[in-house]
Protein backbone atom coordinates (compact mmCIF):
# COMPACT_ATOMS: atom_id res chain seq x y z
CA UNK A 1 0.00 0.00 0.00
CA UNK A 2 2.66 2.49 1.05
CA UNK A 3 4.77 1.59 -1.97
CA UNK A 4 1.79 2.39 -4.18
CA UNK A 5 1.57 5.85 -2.65
CA UNK A 6 5.27 6.45 -3.09
CA UNK A 7 5.21 5.17 -6.65
CA UNK A 8 2.35 7.49 -7.59
CA UNK A 9 3.96 10.51 -5.98
CA UNK A 10 7.28 9.80 -7.68
CA UNK A 11 5.64 9.43 -11.09
CA UNK A 12 4.17 12.89 -10.58
CA UNK A 13 7.51 14.70 -10.66
CA UNK A 14 8.90 13.55 -14.04
CA UNK A 15 5.50 14.17 -15.63
CA UNK A 16 5.52 17.71 -14.33
CA UNK A 17 9.07 18.34 -15.54
CA UNK A 18 8.33 16.91 -18.97
CA UNK A 19 5.18 19.01 -19.14
CA UNK A 20 7.13 22.14 -18.17
CA UNK A 21 9.64 21.50 -20.99
CA UNK A 22 6.83 21.01 -23.43
CA UNK A 23 5.17 24.25 -22.32
CA UNK A 24 8.41 26.18 -22.66
CA UNK A 25 9.16 24.78 -26.09
CA UNK A 26 5.65 25.39 -27.41
CA UNK A 27 5.54 28.95 -26.15
CA UNK A 28 8.89 29.89 -27.63
CA UNK A 29 8.05 28.40 -31.02
CA UNK A 30 5.12 30.80 -31.34
CA UNK A 31 5.86 33.33 -34.06
CA UNK A 32 5.75 37.00 -33.10
CA UNK A 33 8.20 39.22 -31.31
CA UNK A 34 7.33 40.40 -27.80
CA UNK A 35 9.76 43.31 -28.01
CA UNK A 36 8.12 44.60 -31.19
CA UNK A 37 4.67 44.29 -29.61
CA UNK A 38 5.77 46.19 -26.52
CA UNK A 39 7.43 49.05 -28.34
CA UNK A 40 4.56 49.66 -30.75
CA UNK A 41 4.31 51.26 -34.14
CA UNK A 42 7.18 53.72 -34.20
CA UNK A 43 9.95 51.50 -32.81
CA UNK A 44 13.14 51.23 -34.86
CA UNK A 45 14.85 47.86 -35.46
CA UNK A 46 17.66 48.96 -33.11
CA UNK A 47 15.16 49.64 -30.31
CA UNK A 48 13.62 46.21 -30.81
CA UNK A 49 17.00 44.47 -30.81
CA UNK A 50 18.02 46.31 -27.65
CA UNK A 51 14.84 45.38 -25.81
CA UNK A 52 15.16 41.76 -26.99
CA UNK A 53 18.63 41.65 -25.42
CA UNK A 54 17.39 43.30 -22.26
CA UNK A 55 14.60 40.75 -21.90
CA UNK A 56 17.06 37.90 -22.37
CA UNK A 57 15.16 36.63 -25.40
CA UNK A 58 18.31 36.37 -27.52
CA UNK A 59 19.82 33.57 -25.41
CA UNK A 60 19.67 29.95 -26.62
CA UNK A 61 16.36 28.39 -25.71
CA UNK A 62 17.79 25.69 -23.41
CA UNK A 63 19.56 28.32 -21.36
CA UNK A 64 16.35 30.33 -21.11
CA UNK A 65 14.58 27.17 -19.97
CA UNK A 66 17.12 26.37 -17.27
CA UNK A 67 16.97 29.93 -16.08
CA UNK A 68 13.19 29.83 -15.98
CA UNK A 69 12.87 26.40 -14.37
CA UNK A 70 15.48 27.32 -11.78
CA UNK A 71 13.24 30.18 -10.78
CA UNK A 72 10.10 28.03 -10.83
CA UNK A 73 11.59 25.64 -8.27
CA UNK A 74 12.13 28.60 -5.97
CA UNK A 75 8.58 29.77 -6.55
CA UNK A 76 9.57 32.55 -8.94
CA UNK A 77 7.74 32.46 -12.27
CA UNK A 78 9.56 35.50 -13.59
CA UNK A 79 8.37 38.95 -14.63
CA UNK A 80 5.51 39.69 -16.97
CA UNK A 81 6.96 41.33 -20.08
CA UNK A 82 3.80 43.36 -20.47
CA UNK A 83 2.89 44.40 -16.94
CA UNK A 84 6.47 44.45 -15.61
CA UNK A 85 5.23 42.83 -12.39
CA UNK A 86 5.89 39.31 -11.07
CA UNK A 87 3.98 36.67 -13.02
CA UNK A 88 2.80 35.11 -9.80
CA UNK A 89 1.00 38.29 -8.76
CA UNK A 90 -0.58 38.66 -12.22
CA UNK A 91 -1.87 35.10 -11.94
CA UNK A 92 -2.97 35.61 -8.36
CA UNK A 93 -5.11 38.54 -9.55
CA UNK A 94 -6.83 36.28 -12.05
CA UNK A 95 -7.07 33.31 -9.69
CA UNK A 96 -9.78 34.90 -7.58
CA UNK A 97 -12.12 35.17 -10.56
CA UNK A 98 -11.28 31.74 -11.92
CA UNK A 99 -11.65 29.90 -8.62
CA UNK A 100 -14.91 31.63 -7.72
CA UNK A 101 -16.28 30.99 -11.19
CA UNK A 102 -15.31 27.31 -11.00
CA UNK A 103 -16.81 26.98 -7.52
CA UNK A 104 -20.03 28.61 -8.55
CA UNK A 105 -20.23 26.46 -11.66
CA UNK A 106 -19.68 23.36 -9.51
CA UNK A 107 -22.51 24.53 -7.29
CA UNK A 108 -24.89 24.66 -10.25
CA UNK A 109 -23.69 21.30 -11.45
CA UNK A 110 -24.42 19.77 -8.05
CA UNK A 111 -27.76 21.52 -7.67
CA UNK A 112 -28.96 20.48 -11.13
CA UNK A 113 -26.83 17.49 -12.01
CA UNK A 114 -27.06 15.29 -8.94
CA UNK A 115 -30.86 15.31 -8.45
CA UNK A 116 -31.44 14.82 -12.16
CA UNK A 117 -28.93 11.97 -12.20
CA UNK A 118 -30.67 10.32 -9.25
CA UNK A 119 -34.03 10.88 -10.88
CA UNK A 120 -33.02 9.21 -14.10
CA UNK A 121 -31.34 6.30 -12.26
CA UNK A 122 -34.35 5.62 -10.07
CA UNK A 123 -36.60 5.83 -13.13
CA UNK A 124 -34.19 3.82 -15.21
CA UNK A 125 -35.60 2.94 -18.61
CA UNK A 126 -38.72 5.06 -18.35
CA UNK A 127 -39.60 8.20 -20.31
CA UNK A 128 -38.31 10.32 -17.43
CA UNK A 129 -34.91 8.74 -17.86
CA UNK A 130 -34.98 9.36 -21.60
CA UNK A 131 -36.15 12.93 -21.23
CA UNK A 132 -33.56 13.90 -18.63
CA UNK A 133 -30.65 12.36 -20.48
CA UNK A 134 -31.99 13.98 -23.66
CA UNK A 135 -31.89 17.36 -21.97
CA UNK A 136 -28.44 16.70 -20.58
CA UNK A 137 -27.11 15.83 -24.01
CA UNK A 138 -28.82 18.85 -25.52
CA UNK A 139 -27.13 21.27 -23.12
CA UNK A 140 -23.81 19.60 -23.80
CA UNK A 141 -24.30 20.33 -27.52
CA UNK A 142 -24.48 24.12 -27.31
CA UNK A 143 -21.31 26.09 -28.05
CA UNK A 144 -20.61 27.96 -24.81
CA UNK A 145 -19.92 31.32 -26.43
CA UNK A 146 -23.22 31.17 -28.30
CA UNK A 147 -25.13 30.42 -25.12
CA UNK A 148 -23.24 33.16 -23.30
CA UNK A 149 -24.04 35.78 -25.94
CA UNK A 150 -27.76 35.02 -25.74
CA UNK A 151 -27.81 34.93 -21.94
CA UNK A 152 -26.25 38.41 -21.90
CA UNK A 153 -28.76 39.61 -24.47
CA UNK A 154 -31.81 38.32 -22.62
CA UNK A 155 -30.95 38.53 -18.93
CA UNK A 156 -28.56 41.49 -18.81
CA UNK A 157 -29.56 43.78 -21.68
CA UNK A 158 -33.21 42.77 -22.07
CA UNK A 159 -34.43 42.11 -18.57
CA UNK A 160 -31.65 43.86 -16.70
CA UNK A 161 -31.62 41.18 -14.01
CA UNK A 162 -27.91 40.52 -13.92
CA UNK A 163 -24.75 42.43 -14.79
CA UNK A 164 -23.58 41.70 -18.31
CA UNK A 165 -19.87 41.46 -17.88
CA UNK A 166 -16.81 42.18 -15.80
CA UNK A 167 -16.22 41.17 -12.20
CA UNK A 168 -15.15 43.58 -9.47
CA UNK A 169 -13.16 41.79 -6.80
CA UNK A 170 -15.12 40.66 -3.72
CA UNK A 171 -12.65 42.71 -1.69
CA UNK A 172 -13.91 45.74 -3.61
CA UNK A 173 -17.06 47.79 -2.83
CA UNK A 174 -20.02 45.44 -2.81
CA UNK A 175 -18.17 42.51 -1.23
CA UNK A 176 -19.81 39.14 -1.69
CA UNK A 177 -22.65 40.71 -3.60
CA UNK A 178 -20.25 41.10 -6.49
CA UNK A 179 -20.75 37.38 -7.02
CA UNK A 180 -23.86 38.30 -9.00
CA UNK A 181 -21.47 39.23 -11.79
CA UNK A 182 -20.61 35.55 -12.03
CA UNK A 183 -24.17 34.23 -12.23
CA UNK A 184 -24.57 34.23 -16.01
CA UNK A 185 -21.01 33.05 -16.71
CA UNK A 186 -21.29 30.19 -14.24
CA UNK A 187 -24.61 29.06 -15.73
CA UNK A 188 -23.06 29.20 -19.19
CA UNK A 189 -20.20 27.07 -18.05
CA UNK A 190 -22.39 24.68 -16.07
CA UNK A 191 -24.71 23.83 -18.98
CA UNK A 192 -22.35 21.57 -20.92
CA UNK A 193 -20.61 20.17 -17.86
CA UNK A 194 -23.73 19.19 -15.95
CA UNK A 195 -24.41 16.50 -18.55
CA UNK A 196 -21.25 14.65 -17.61
CA UNK A 197 -22.17 14.56 -13.95
CA UNK A 198 -25.77 13.56 -14.65
CA UNK A 199 -24.49 10.60 -16.63
CA UNK A 200 -21.98 9.66 -13.99
CA UNK A 201 -24.43 9.83 -11.11
CA UNK A 202 -26.87 7.77 -13.12
CA UNK A 203 -24.49 5.06 -14.24
CA UNK A 204 -22.64 4.70 -10.96
CA UNK A 205 -25.97 4.45 -9.12
CA UNK A 206 -27.09 1.77 -11.53
CA UNK A 207 -23.82 -0.12 -10.98
CA UNK A 208 -23.99 0.08 -7.24
CA UNK A 209 -27.63 -0.97 -7.30
CA UNK A 210 -26.50 -4.34 -8.60
CA UNK A 211 -24.15 -4.94 -5.68
CA UNK A 212 -24.79 -7.32 -2.83
CA UNK A 213 -25.46 -4.98 0.06
CA UNK A 214 -28.12 -3.20 -1.92
CA UNK A 215 -29.82 -6.44 -2.75
CA UNK A 216 -29.71 -7.26 0.97
CA UNK A 217 -31.30 -3.94 1.79
CA UNK A 218 -34.01 -4.63 -0.73
CA UNK A 219 -34.58 -8.06 0.78
CA UNK A 220 -34.90 -6.43 4.19
CA UNK A 221 -37.86 -4.55 2.77
CA UNK A 222 -36.47 -1.00 2.78
CA UNK A 223 -38.39 1.42 0.60
CA UNK A 224 -36.92 2.11 -2.84
CA UNK A 225 -36.40 5.79 -2.05
CA UNK A 226 -34.52 4.97 1.12
CA UNK A 227 -32.36 2.48 -0.69
CA UNK A 228 -31.62 4.97 -3.41
CA UNK A 229 -30.53 7.68 -1.03
CA UNK A 230 -28.95 5.70 1.77
CA UNK A 231 -27.15 2.89 0.05
CA UNK A 232 -26.89 3.53 -3.60
CA UNK A 233 -26.19 7.22 -3.73
CA UNK A 234 -23.74 7.20 -0.88
CA UNK A 235 -21.62 4.60 -2.59
CA UNK A 236 -21.97 6.18 -5.97
CA UNK A 237 -20.77 9.39 -4.40
CA UNK A 238 -17.18 8.17 -4.38
CA UNK A 239 -17.08 7.84 -8.15
CA UNK A 240 -18.85 11.14 -8.56
CA UNK A 241 -16.52 12.93 -6.16
CA UNK A 242 -13.60 11.84 -8.30
CA UNK A 243 -15.32 13.15 -11.41
CA UNK A 244 -15.92 16.47 -9.66
CA UNK A 245 -12.20 16.74 -9.10
CA UNK A 246 -11.46 16.47 -12.79
CA UNK A 247 -14.35 18.68 -13.77
CA UNK A 248 -13.13 21.38 -11.43
CA UNK A 249 -9.69 21.41 -12.96
CA UNK A 250 -11.13 21.31 -16.46
CA UNK A 251 -13.44 24.22 -15.66
CA UNK A 252 -10.52 26.51 -14.94
CA UNK A 253 -9.21 26.10 -18.46
CA UNK A 254 -12.52 25.65 -20.26
CA UNK A 255 -13.45 29.04 -18.90
CA UNK A 256 -11.18 30.61 -21.56
CA UNK A 257 -14.17 31.13 -23.85
CA UNK A 258 -16.65 32.07 -21.13
CA UNK A 259 -14.27 34.59 -19.59
CA UNK A 260 -13.74 36.13 -23.02
CA UNK A 261 -17.47 36.48 -23.70
CA UNK A 262 -18.22 37.92 -20.26
CA UNK A 263 -14.99 39.90 -20.09
CA UNK A 264 -14.02 38.36 -16.75
CA UNK A 265 -10.54 39.04 -15.38
CA UNK A 266 -9.75 35.35 -14.88
CA UNK A 267 -6.74 33.28 -15.85
CA UNK A 268 -8.47 31.93 -18.98
CA UNK A 269 -8.79 35.34 -20.58
CA UNK A 270 -5.32 36.15 -19.27
CA UNK A 271 -3.94 33.30 -21.37
CA UNK A 272 -5.68 34.51 -24.52
CA UNK A 273 -4.62 38.12 -24.00
CA UNK A 274 -1.07 37.08 -23.12
CA UNK A 275 -0.85 35.03 -26.29
CA UNK A 276 -1.88 38.09 -28.30
CA UNK A 277 0.74 40.16 -26.46
CA UNK A 278 3.38 37.42 -26.64
CA UNK A 279 3.87 37.74 -22.89
CA UNK A 280 5.77 34.45 -22.65
CA UNK A 281 6.37 34.35 -18.88
CA UNK A 282 2.67 34.81 -18.15
CA UNK A 283 1.51 32.16 -20.66
CA UNK A 284 4.08 29.71 -19.30
CA UNK A 285 3.18 30.50 -15.74
CA UNK A 286 -0.56 30.11 -16.18
CA UNK A 287 -0.27 26.87 -18.12
CA UNK A 288 2.24 25.46 -15.65
CA UNK A 289 -0.04 26.23 -12.74
CA UNK A 290 -3.08 24.74 -14.46
CA UNK A 291 -1.09 21.62 -15.33
CA UNK A 292 0.12 21.41 -11.74
CA UNK A 293 -3.44 21.72 -10.49
CA UNK A 294 -4.61 19.10 -12.94
CA UNK A 295 -1.90 16.63 -12.01
CA UNK A 296 -2.36 17.23 -8.28
CA UNK A 297 -6.08 16.58 -8.43
CA UNK A 298 -5.32 13.50 -10.51
CA UNK A 299 -2.88 12.34 -7.86
CA UNK A 300 -5.22 13.02 -4.96
CA UNK A 301 -8.04 11.18 -6.67
CA UNK A 302 -5.79 8.21 -7.39
CA UNK A 303 -4.51 8.10 -3.83
CA UNK A 304 -8.01 8.43 -2.44
CA UNK A 305 -9.11 5.55 -4.63
CA UNK A 306 -6.20 3.44 -3.47
CA UNK A 307 -7.12 4.19 0.11
CA UNK A 308 -10.86 3.56 -0.35
CA UNK A 309 -10.46 0.49 -2.49
CA UNK A 310 -7.28 -1.46 -1.68
CA UNK A 311 -7.75 -3.60 -4.80
CA UNK A 312 -6.63 -0.67 -6.94
CA UNK A 313 -3.20 -0.40 -5.38
CA UNK A 314 -2.48 -4.04 -6.05
CA UNK A 315 -2.92 -3.68 -9.79
Amino acid at each position, binding site marked *: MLSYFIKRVLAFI*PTLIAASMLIFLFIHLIPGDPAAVLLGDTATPEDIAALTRELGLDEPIWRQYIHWFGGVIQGDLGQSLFFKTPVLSVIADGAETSLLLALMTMTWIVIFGVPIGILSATHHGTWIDQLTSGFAIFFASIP*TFWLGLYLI*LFFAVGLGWFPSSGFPSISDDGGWRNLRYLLLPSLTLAAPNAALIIRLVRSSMLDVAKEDHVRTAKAKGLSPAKIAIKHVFRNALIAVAAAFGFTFAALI*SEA*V*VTETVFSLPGVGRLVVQSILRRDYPVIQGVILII*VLLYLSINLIVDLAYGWLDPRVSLQ
Partner: protein
Amino acid sequence: MIDAIKNRAISIRRVFAGRKVAALGAIWLCIVLVAAVFAPWVAPFDPLEIDPVARLTEPGAPYLFGTDHFGRDTFSRALHGARMAILIGVGSVLIALILGGLVGMLSAYFTKLGHVLMRAVDVLMAFPALLLALVLMTLLERSVANTIIVIGLVYAATTSRILFGMTLKLKNDVFIDAARCSGAGHFSLLFRHILPNLLSPLLVQATFIFAFAQLQAAALDFLGLGLPPEVPSWGNMLSEERIYITRAPWLLLFPGLLIIFSVFSVNLVGDAMRDSLDPRFKDDIAGV
Protein backbone atom coordinates in the same frame (compact mmCIF):
# COMPACT_ATOMS: atom_id res chain seq x y z
CA MET B 1 -14.60 -15.98 -34.17
CA ILE B 2 -16.70 -14.29 -36.83
CA ASP B 3 -19.82 -15.02 -34.82
CA ALA B 4 -18.29 -13.44 -31.79
CA ILE B 5 -17.71 -10.27 -33.73
CA LYS B 6 -21.24 -10.28 -35.03
CA ASN B 7 -22.65 -10.67 -31.55
CA ARG B 8 -20.67 -7.77 -30.25
CA ALA B 9 -21.21 -5.59 -33.25
CA ILE B 10 -23.85 -2.91 -33.26
CA SER B 11 -26.98 -3.58 -35.20
CA ILE B 12 -28.73 -0.52 -36.47
CA ARG B 13 -32.10 -1.86 -35.56
CA ARG B 14 -31.09 -2.56 -31.97
CA VAL B 15 -29.49 0.84 -31.56
CA PHE B 16 -32.52 2.80 -32.65
CA ALA B 17 -35.24 0.52 -31.28
CA GLY B 18 -37.40 2.64 -28.98
CA ARG B 19 -35.23 5.71 -29.57
CA LYS B 20 -37.15 7.86 -31.95
CA VAL B 21 -35.17 10.99 -31.11
CA ALA B 22 -31.89 9.28 -31.84
CA ALA B 23 -33.33 8.07 -35.13
CA LEU B 24 -34.32 11.66 -35.95
CA GLY B 25 -30.77 12.66 -35.12
CA ALA B 26 -29.44 10.07 -37.55
CA ILE B 27 -31.73 11.43 -40.26
CA TRP B 28 -30.51 14.99 -39.60
CA LEU B 29 -26.93 13.81 -39.92
CA CYS B 30 -27.75 12.25 -43.27
CA ILE B 31 -29.15 15.59 -44.43
CA VAL B 32 -25.97 17.37 -43.30
CA LEU B 33 -23.89 14.79 -45.12
CA VAL B 34 -25.86 15.23 -48.34
CA ALA B 35 -25.58 19.02 -48.02
CA ALA B 36 -21.85 18.68 -47.50
CA VAL B 37 -21.33 16.48 -50.53
CA PHE B 38 -23.50 18.47 -52.91
CA ALA B 39 -22.88 21.97 -51.50
CA PRO B 40 -21.19 23.41 -54.62
CA TRP B 41 -24.11 22.31 -56.82
CA VAL B 42 -26.95 23.01 -54.40
CA ALA B 43 -25.80 26.38 -53.08
CA PRO B 44 -27.61 29.21 -54.89
CA PHE B 45 -24.63 31.60 -54.54
CA ASP B 46 -20.87 31.53 -54.34
CA PRO B 47 -20.19 31.52 -50.57
CA LEU B 48 -17.35 34.01 -51.03
CA GLU B 49 -19.08 36.40 -53.43
CA ILE B 50 -19.11 39.90 -51.96
CA ASP B 51 -21.99 42.26 -52.70
CA PRO B 52 -21.89 45.55 -50.76
CA VAL B 53 -25.35 46.51 -51.98
CA ALA B 54 -27.03 43.41 -50.56
CA ARG B 55 -25.29 43.44 -47.19
CA LEU B 56 -27.28 42.54 -44.07
CA THR B 57 -30.38 41.59 -46.04
CA GLU B 58 -33.10 39.87 -44.05
CA PRO B 59 -33.95 36.23 -44.76
CA GLY B 60 -36.28 35.79 -47.73
CA ALA B 61 -36.01 35.17 -51.47
CA PRO B 62 -33.42 34.96 -52.90
CA TYR B 63 -31.38 34.87 -49.68
CA LEU B 64 -32.98 32.07 -47.66
CA PHE B 65 -30.95 32.76 -44.51
CA GLY B 66 -30.23 36.42 -45.24
CA THR B 67 -26.81 37.93 -45.97
CA ASP B 68 -23.82 38.89 -43.81
CA HIS B 69 -21.93 42.18 -43.61
CA PHE B 70 -20.03 41.38 -46.80
CA GLY B 71 -23.35 40.76 -48.56
CA ARG B 72 -22.56 37.05 -48.82
CA ASP B 73 -25.42 34.56 -48.85
CA THR B 74 -25.72 32.90 -45.45
CA PHE B 75 -27.56 29.87 -46.80
CA SER B 76 -24.81 29.08 -49.29
CA ARG B 77 -22.22 29.61 -46.61
CA ALA B 78 -24.14 27.31 -44.28
CA LEU B 79 -24.14 24.58 -46.93
CA HIS B 80 -20.41 24.93 -47.41
CA GLY B 81 -20.10 25.07 -43.63
CA ALA B 82 -21.60 21.58 -43.53
CA ARG B 83 -18.60 20.50 -45.61
CA MET B 84 -16.21 21.94 -43.09
CA ALA B 85 -18.12 20.34 -40.24
CA ILE B 86 -17.89 16.88 -41.82
CA LEU B 87 -14.27 17.44 -42.84
CA ILE B 88 -13.21 18.52 -39.36
CA GLY B 89 -15.23 15.78 -37.69
CA VAL B 90 -14.02 12.94 -39.90
CA GLY B 91 -10.46 14.25 -40.04
CA SER B 92 -9.97 14.63 -36.33
CA VAL B 93 -11.72 11.31 -35.66
CA LEU B 94 -9.34 9.53 -38.03
CA ILE B 95 -6.26 11.10 -36.47
CA ALA B 96 -7.47 10.50 -32.94
CA LEU B 97 -8.47 6.89 -33.56
CA ILE B 98 -5.53 5.82 -35.69
CA LEU B 99 -2.85 7.55 -33.65
CA GLY B 100 -4.47 7.11 -30.26
CA GLY B 101 -5.61 3.59 -31.12
CA LEU B 102 -2.16 2.43 -32.15
CA VAL B 103 -0.47 3.96 -29.13
CA GLY B 104 -3.05 2.55 -26.76
CA MET B 105 -3.09 -0.96 -28.17
CA LEU B 106 0.66 -1.26 -28.58
CA SER B 107 1.21 0.09 -25.08
CA ALA B 108 -1.13 -2.44 -23.56
CA TYR B 109 0.26 -5.30 -25.59
CA PHE B 110 3.97 -4.59 -25.22
CA THR B 111 4.33 -3.74 -21.56
CA LYS B 112 7.79 -2.16 -21.74
CA LEU B 113 6.92 0.06 -24.67
CA GLY B 114 3.72 0.88 -22.87
CA HIS B 115 5.65 2.29 -19.92
CA VAL B 116 7.33 4.84 -22.14
CA LEU B 117 4.39 5.67 -24.38
CA MET B 118 1.82 5.97 -21.64
CA ARG B 119 4.09 8.34 -19.69
CA ALA B 120 4.20 10.53 -22.80
CA VAL B 121 0.43 10.32 -22.98
CA ASP B 122 0.29 11.29 -19.29
CA VAL B 123 2.23 14.43 -20.10
CA LEU B 124 -0.12 15.37 -22.93
CA MET B 125 -3.12 14.56 -20.76
CA ALA B 126 -1.83 16.95 -18.13
CA PHE B 127 -2.89 19.77 -20.46
CA PRO B 128 -6.58 20.59 -20.53
CA ALA B 129 -7.91 20.00 -24.05
CA LEU B 130 -8.83 23.55 -25.03
CA LEU B 131 -5.63 25.02 -23.61
CA LEU B 132 -3.47 22.56 -25.54
CA ALA B 133 -5.39 23.26 -28.74
CA LEU B 134 -5.07 26.99 -28.14
CA VAL B 135 -1.31 26.93 -27.73
CA LEU B 136 -0.76 24.56 -30.65
CA MET B 137 -2.90 26.66 -32.96
CA THR B 138 -0.98 29.81 -32.06
CA LEU B 139 2.22 28.00 -32.83
CA LEU B 140 1.08 26.66 -36.17
CA GLU B 141 -0.57 28.75 -38.82
CA ARG B 142 -4.33 29.01 -39.03
CA SER B 143 -5.41 26.45 -41.62
CA VAL B 144 -7.98 23.72 -42.08
CA ALA B 145 -5.34 20.99 -41.93
CA ASN B 146 -3.74 22.36 -38.77
CA THR B 147 -7.08 22.69 -37.02
CA ILE B 148 -7.87 19.07 -37.81
CA ILE B 149 -4.43 17.88 -36.73
CA VAL B 150 -4.53 19.80 -33.46
CA ILE B 151 -8.02 18.65 -32.48
CA GLY B 152 -7.18 15.10 -33.57
CA LEU B 153 -4.01 15.15 -31.51
CA VAL B 154 -5.78 16.42 -28.42
CA TYR B 155 -8.30 13.57 -28.56
CA ALA B 156 -5.67 11.02 -29.59
CA ALA B 157 -4.36 11.23 -26.04
CA THR B 158 -7.78 10.44 -24.55
CA THR B 159 -8.37 7.67 -27.07
CA SER B 160 -5.05 6.01 -26.34
CA ARG B 161 -5.92 5.84 -22.64
CA ILE B 162 -9.24 4.21 -23.44
CA LEU B 163 -7.79 1.75 -25.92
CA PHE B 164 -5.02 0.94 -23.45
CA GLY B 165 -7.57 -0.02 -20.82
CA MET B 166 -9.73 -2.04 -23.16
CA THR B 167 -6.81 -3.91 -24.72
CA LEU B 168 -5.55 -4.79 -21.26
CA LYS B 169 -8.93 -6.32 -20.45
CA LEU B 170 -8.88 -8.43 -23.62
CA LYS B 171 -5.22 -9.32 -23.61
CA ASN B 172 -5.61 -12.20 -21.19
CA ASP B 173 -9.01 -13.28 -22.40
CA VAL B 174 -9.52 -16.98 -23.14
CA PHE B 175 -9.92 -16.60 -26.87
CA ILE B 176 -6.73 -14.58 -27.16
CA ASP B 177 -4.88 -17.25 -25.22
CA ALA B 178 -6.33 -19.84 -27.56
CA ALA B 179 -5.15 -17.93 -30.62
CA ARG B 180 -1.73 -17.45 -29.07
CA CYS B 181 -1.40 -21.18 -28.42
CA SER B 182 -2.32 -21.95 -31.99
CA GLY B 183 0.71 -19.94 -33.05
CA ALA B 184 -0.66 -16.53 -34.01
CA GLY B 185 2.04 -13.82 -34.12
CA HIS B 186 1.92 -10.43 -32.40
CA PHE B 187 0.59 -8.69 -35.44
CA SER B 188 -2.14 -11.22 -36.00
CA LEU B 189 -3.11 -11.23 -32.33
CA LEU B 190 -3.35 -7.46 -32.19
CA PHE B 191 -5.07 -6.73 -35.45
CA ARG B 192 -6.99 -9.94 -36.25
CA HIS B 193 -8.09 -10.96 -32.79
CA ILE B 194 -8.06 -8.00 -30.41
CA LEU B 195 -8.92 -5.12 -32.74
CA PRO B 196 -12.14 -6.59 -34.19
CA ASN B 197 -13.50 -6.87 -30.68
CA LEU B 198 -12.78 -3.21 -30.06
CA LEU B 199 -14.35 -1.91 -33.24
CA SER B 200 -17.77 -1.25 -31.74
CA PRO B 201 -16.52 0.73 -28.76
CA LEU B 202 -14.18 2.56 -31.13
CA LEU B 203 -17.13 3.51 -33.29
CA VAL B 204 -18.93 4.91 -30.27
CA GLN B 205 -15.82 6.79 -29.21
CA ALA B 206 -15.60 8.13 -32.76
CA THR B 207 -19.07 9.67 -32.54
CA PHE B 208 -18.19 11.48 -29.34
CA ILE B 209 -14.91 12.78 -30.76
CA PHE B 210 -16.84 13.93 -33.81
CA ALA B 211 -19.19 15.91 -31.60
CA PHE B 212 -16.45 17.37 -29.38
CA ALA B 213 -14.44 18.32 -32.45
CA GLN B 214 -17.32 20.48 -33.70
CA LEU B 215 -17.57 22.40 -30.45
CA GLN B 216 -13.82 22.62 -30.06
CA ALA B 217 -13.40 23.96 -33.60
CA ALA B 218 -16.17 26.50 -33.04
CA ALA B 219 -14.50 27.65 -29.81
CA LEU B 220 -11.16 28.05 -31.61
CA ASP B 221 -12.87 29.99 -34.40
CA PHE B 222 -14.46 32.21 -31.78
CA LEU B 223 -11.07 32.93 -30.18
CA GLY B 224 -9.69 33.72 -33.64
CA LEU B 225 -7.36 30.73 -33.61
CA GLY B 226 -9.18 28.15 -35.69
CA LEU B 227 -9.85 27.89 -39.40
CA PRO B 228 -8.63 30.78 -41.56
CA PRO B 229 -11.30 33.49 -41.42
CA GLU B 230 -12.05 33.29 -45.14
CA VAL B 231 -13.18 29.65 -44.83
CA PRO B 232 -16.98 29.41 -44.54
CA SER B 233 -17.43 27.28 -41.44
CA TRP B 234 -20.26 27.53 -38.95
CA GLY B 235 -17.85 28.59 -36.22
CA ASN B 236 -16.33 31.32 -38.39
CA MET B 237 -19.78 32.54 -39.40
CA LEU B 238 -20.68 32.95 -35.73
CA SER B 239 -17.38 34.47 -34.78
CA GLU B 240 -17.19 36.93 -37.66
CA GLU B 241 -20.77 38.16 -37.34
CA ARG B 242 -21.21 38.07 -33.59
CA ILE B 243 -21.54 41.83 -33.23
CA TYR B 244 -24.70 41.67 -35.33
CA ILE B 245 -26.61 39.67 -32.73
CA THR B 246 -29.27 42.39 -32.48
CA ARG B 247 -28.72 44.20 -35.78
CA ALA B 248 -29.02 41.06 -37.94
CA PRO B 249 -30.10 38.22 -35.62
CA TRP B 250 -30.26 35.63 -38.41
CA LEU B 251 -26.48 35.71 -38.67
CA LEU B 252 -26.13 34.13 -35.25
CA LEU B 253 -29.29 32.13 -35.15
CA PHE B 254 -28.85 29.91 -38.22
CA PRO B 255 -25.22 28.81 -37.86
CA GLY B 256 -25.73 28.42 -34.09
CA LEU B 257 -28.74 26.19 -34.53
CA LEU B 258 -26.93 24.16 -37.19
CA ILE B 259 -24.08 23.46 -34.79
CA ILE B 260 -26.44 22.60 -31.96
CA PHE B 261 -28.63 20.27 -34.06
CA SER B 262 -25.64 18.51 -35.52
CA VAL B 263 -23.73 18.05 -32.29
CA PHE B 264 -26.92 17.03 -30.50
CA SER B 265 -27.67 14.44 -33.20
CA VAL B 266 -24.20 12.95 -33.12
CA ASN B 267 -24.31 12.76 -29.35
CA LEU B 268 -27.73 11.10 -29.38
CA VAL B 269 -26.61 8.50 -31.88
CA GLY B 270 -23.45 7.89 -29.90
CA ASP B 271 -25.40 7.59 -26.69
CA ALA B 272 -27.78 5.10 -28.27
CA MET B 273 -24.91 3.04 -29.62
CA ARG B 274 -23.15 3.04 -26.28
CA ASP B 275 -26.17 1.56 -24.58
CA SER B 276 -26.03 -1.44 -26.89
CA LEU B 277 -22.32 -1.99 -26.28
CA ASP B 278 -20.62 -4.89 -24.58
CA PRO B 279 -21.04 -4.00 -20.88
CA ARG B 280 -17.33 -4.56 -20.28
CA PHE B 281 -16.46 -1.50 -22.35
CA LYS B 282 -19.39 0.75 -21.64
CA ASP B 283 -17.75 2.79 -18.92
CA ASP B 284 -14.48 3.14 -20.79
CA ILE B 285 -16.02 5.44 -23.37
CA ALA B 286 -15.94 9.07 -22.46
CA GLY B 287 -18.55 11.41 -23.83
CA VAL B 288 -21.59 13.15 -22.52
